[in-house]
């Protein structure tokens, strides 16, 4: 069974609440909403830092080459208030991560969510609002 007990909080899996988005700069200045990404890999580390946490995963391509990708997540302080600690997402955990590619061409993206091998999901980012358009 997964060691990811922190996901269960009062019967609701972990969710980012009270931190819809961080309005200090526009999403579109850094990331491309028209370049959604979905990749499978293993956790290298989860930098629980501000202003955004970063989930780094190692992704193997079809030729067996491994590249590291970093996905931007929410500020960790909210996560701490939900019981998350630095031991919550151990390196080596298999995950599927969805996000939107960085516009500068680097191996970085705005994280949307993480899905674990058992199907449970962790939201990394919520940037919707009244004017949001449906994401395909």
């Amino acid at each position, binding site marked *: 069974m997964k060691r990811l007990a922190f996901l269960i909080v009062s019967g609701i899996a972990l969710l980012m609440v009270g931190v819809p988005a*961080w*309005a200090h700069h526009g999403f579109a200045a850094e990331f491309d909403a028209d370049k959604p990404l979905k990749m499978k890999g293993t956790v290298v580390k989860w930098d629980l830092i501000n202003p955004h946490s970063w989930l780094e995963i190692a992704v193997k391509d079809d030729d067996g080459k491994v590249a590291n990708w970093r996905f931007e997540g929410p500020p960790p*302080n909210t996560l701490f208030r939900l019981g998350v600690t630095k031991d919550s997402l151990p390196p080596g955990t298999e995950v599927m991560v969805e996000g939107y590619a960085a516009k500068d061409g680097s191996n970085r993206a705005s994280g949307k969510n993480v899905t674990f091998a058992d199907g449970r999901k962790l939201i990394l980012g*919520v940037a919707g*609002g009244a004017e949001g358009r449906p994401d395909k």
Partner: protein
Amino acid sequence: MHHRKIVFSCVFAASAAILLVAQVPAVGQQTAPAKKAWTPGRTPDGDPDIAGVYDARTATPVERPKELGAKEFYTDQEFKEVSDRLHRKDPTAPGASAGVFGEGGGDNRRVQYDKDVFGFDVFLSNYVATKRTSLVVGPEGKIPPMLPEARERNATRNAYNRAHETDRVQNQNLETRCILSNRQLIPLFPIEDSNTHLQIVQGKGYVAIYQELNHDVRVIPTDGRPHLAKEIRQYQGDSVGHWEGNTLVVDTTNFTDQTAFRGSSENMHLVERYTKVSPDMLLYRFTVEDPKTWDKPWTVEVPWMTAKGPLYEYACTEGNESLGLILGAARVKEAEAAKSAK
């Protein structure tokens, strides 16, 4: 004096109820004479005790909805209805935009995530309602219009910023540069999508107000000393305080022109009043005046609820990858444009 049944709004509860707080209005706002009002205890140094961790989130709109005219407070019944509508996620409820102050935000909203994965919804997040119909107090319930000279000053500045935003890091706003976030800068105004936790620690002759976002701390002397010389300017100005009964009054001047709160100038004069009105609530009230921006002062009142600590470190510049992403994206775009122009 009415007794309110206090029900808690909590993100973890499967069924959320709303924290209703009977507002004890500050000076001049009483609609009925109070019975013996709650007063805070004393610190070991003999000052009114306002120490604690607070959450300054609110769902009350900044300005009064037009249809309410000069109505400053809801009746108990109306208050209950508004709260219910917010709780039911009625997008037309006053405050449905959760107290957005309208600074920034634009581009963030283009992408919509699967909020229904966990029934995440901003309305269920922890917030406070007061019976005020707007955070701006008074019969108008609106921020006064900006003077023409201020409008012009801001238009010129905004135009420059828009045109040169990604030229260099210094042209980004203070928040993106991790110098001072919108939430930190005083006066403390509710801003959507931000960390609203803060902590007050009182010592002898000083009150420290520590905001979690970008680890901002103001250590305010309470001896009513004079301000710094007017030539000395700081992003957060210079704050000096004193006690008036149970209220901490903080007077701030000596701002720079860099923070420009609501388009104001470096001449802004801010008076904040902190009063703990119940074991669960501190009333934060401020008045701003700036004859170079508005023709009259205006006042806002925001209730802060006590919250569970501790505050966690928010180191910003140390992990600020955003600057690289923003500038990088701009340089890539320019390179592509240059290539296709050849």
